[in-house]
């Protein structure tokens, strides 16, 4: 009897029902928290122009951590976009890596300071280098998945983009390939409802990005993008399908960007403060804290402690990057062409 009661309670604990241990769900929280505190520091560093540019993933942490957590790190592939800070942190990039990129310093692992910040890449972690034109990574992710199928491994690819990118031809072409060839790729749309200033209703005539999946013969799934466990559940199922050889899934994580598009944007020019404040109440970090408190994995004291720990890590990364040297000017000339071996 007692065992049955315990099992019933366990099933009501969402993360356990999803097969996640208490430690794993706390690890998710830590990744989300660290991404948030790092991102906030980057905004602060931009204010006195200590850094030239920042593009933020604030508000997207649940969608990103929930998705990345379902991958085998360093085995599966990720082709992220510029908001994916929490994604790449979850996959193994470090706060120091990302701070080096922010300051454009020597040793920055994505590009050694060639790219603007948040253009992530890591060969060791199977994070494919990205560019700034949107949606180009989507048909490339289909190509990676094509190669995986060709080599008959059970890897999968995760590629991420905003809802604005789904207006691009490359979105259509990538999903079309994935559908035709039943490719092991998960297309994660982080729908934050704005393409810089343009609301989704002016980008598409369907209510949901997920509706578009039907046109390519793949499933389209909508999840609460501010609920890390909801995202994880859908992503876990999509990864399992892909590994079984059943093909691609389009996941639409409905979320919101409570900050401007980038450090060069002013979102007061295109949306009301009331709307932003309303969404802040649904902040994914707060939601996670509430959940973890409910299931007795977090309390007020632990929240304070983890915040202090995050601040320490962010301070270290900030300090480390600030004091790192710039790449020498002539480093601009290298790695245009490879060595020809014939």
């Amino acid at each position, binding site marked *: 009897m007692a065992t049955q009661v315990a099992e019933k309670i366990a099933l009501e604990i969402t993360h356990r029902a999803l097969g996640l241990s208490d430690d794993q769900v706390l690890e998710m929280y830590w990744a989300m928290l660290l991404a948030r505190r790092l991102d906030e520091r980057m905004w602060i560093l931009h204010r006195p122009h200590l850094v030239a540019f920042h593009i933020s993933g604030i508000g997207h942490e649940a969608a990103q951590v929930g998705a990345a957590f379902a991958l085998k790190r360093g085995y599966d592939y990720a082709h992220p976009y510029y908001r994916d800070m929490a994604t790449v942190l979850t996959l193994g990039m470090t706060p120091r890596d990302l701070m080096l990129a922010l300051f454009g310093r020597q040793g920055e692992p994505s590009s050694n300071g060639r790219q603007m910040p948040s253009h992530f890449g890591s060969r060791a972690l199977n994070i494919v280098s990205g560019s700034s034109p949107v949606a180009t990574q989507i048909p490339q992710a289909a190509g990676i998945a094509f190669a995986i199928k060709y080599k008959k491994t059970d890897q999968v690819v995760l590629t991420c983009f905003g809802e604005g990118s789904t207006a691009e*031809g*490359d979105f259509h072409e990538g999903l079309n390939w994935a559908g035709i060839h039943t490719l092991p790729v998960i297309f994660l749309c982080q729908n934050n409802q704005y393409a810089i200033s343009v609301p989704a209703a002016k980008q598409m005539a369907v209510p949901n990005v997920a509706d578009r999946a039907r046109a390519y013969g793949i499933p389209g799934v909508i999840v609460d993008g501010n609920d890390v466990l909801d995202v994880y559940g859908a992503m876990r199922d999509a990864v399992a399908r892909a590994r079984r050889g059943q093909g691609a899934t389009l996941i639409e994580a409905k979320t919101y960007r409570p900050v401007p598009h980038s450090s060069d944007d002013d979102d007061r020019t295109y949306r009301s403060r009331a709307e932003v404040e309303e969404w802040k109440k649904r902040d994914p970090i707060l939601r996670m804290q509430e959940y973890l408190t409910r299931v007795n994995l977090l309390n007020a004291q632990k929240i304070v402690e983890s915040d202090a720990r995050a601040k320490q890590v962010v301070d270290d990364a900030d300090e480390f990057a600030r004091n790192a040297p710039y790449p020498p000017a002539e480093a601009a000339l290298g790695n245009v062409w490879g060595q020809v071996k014939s």
Partner: protein
Amino acid sequence: MATLTNIEAITRTLAEEMRRDPNIFITGEDVGVRGGVFRATKGLIEEFGESRVVDAPLAESSIVAVGIGAAVYGLRPVSEIQFADFIAPAFNQIVNEAAKMRYRSNGTWTCPLVMRAPYGGGISGGLYHSQSIEATYAHIPGLYVVAPATPYDIVGMLRHALRVDDPVLFLEHKKTYRLIKGEVPDTYYTIPFGKADVKRVGSDLTVIAYGLMLHHALDAAERVARDGISVEVIDPRTLNPLDKDTLLESVKKTGKALIIHEDNLTLGLGAEIAAIIASEAFEWLDAPVMRVAGPDIPAVPFSPPMQDFFMPNVDKIENAIRKLGAY
């Protein structure tokens, strides 16, 4: 030693390389059961199956982008663009993605992708089946642009293309596909990129030409030889990066240079080659650098008199050689 046409050189080399390297696969429009609209992939699906010879949906950006994704994973894709005229939708994927993959990742990610594209006019293809696109793409660092003109060069350079770890735009002049035949040795060889070839040795002036124009230039050189004008003909073969040394060496010897291309005149390859000669061989020049090129109109018109007006041919090249020779 076998005698092959240009198209046979391509098909045979693709097959040989696919036997050698299981990571090579081909995709493009109609490349499978049809064997390509020019028959460049004829017989390949029968030998290698549809997993390695993949009929693509009609969408050029993804024909390149899927190749990029597969290339970064570690395969060696060959993406065929059916006509070079149709490559424009893939411009972003080629220029911003493939050509910058190595640079933007500081050498950690590479993109060994071969993009084959039939180009060029003189085949009644009108505005959209005749274009020469090389100048647009030769401007892009990180992207090899090659235009071999003979079976020997096609075999050696296609082999090389399938061994380098950077993207290659492999341009094939479609009029030469069945027009040009040549001997290809049975022994294995490759031709590295960035190496021009002296196709005819001469002493009075240097003609630089590639693709179909190389063959016209050789014919014109033969004609004027009867009147004692000795023309050296250089085929750059690789359009980016150019083999400056071979070009300059020839011009320093002859003192005169004539550049021929079918691509329109303004900001074409000839402009760059002329600038190289002007800045690095000025003291050796006995005459202004001259160019024969397509006119600065949007593309090759369909109607025969207008098409002929567009295309540089043996007569036009011969006239230019005589004019430069007499300078």
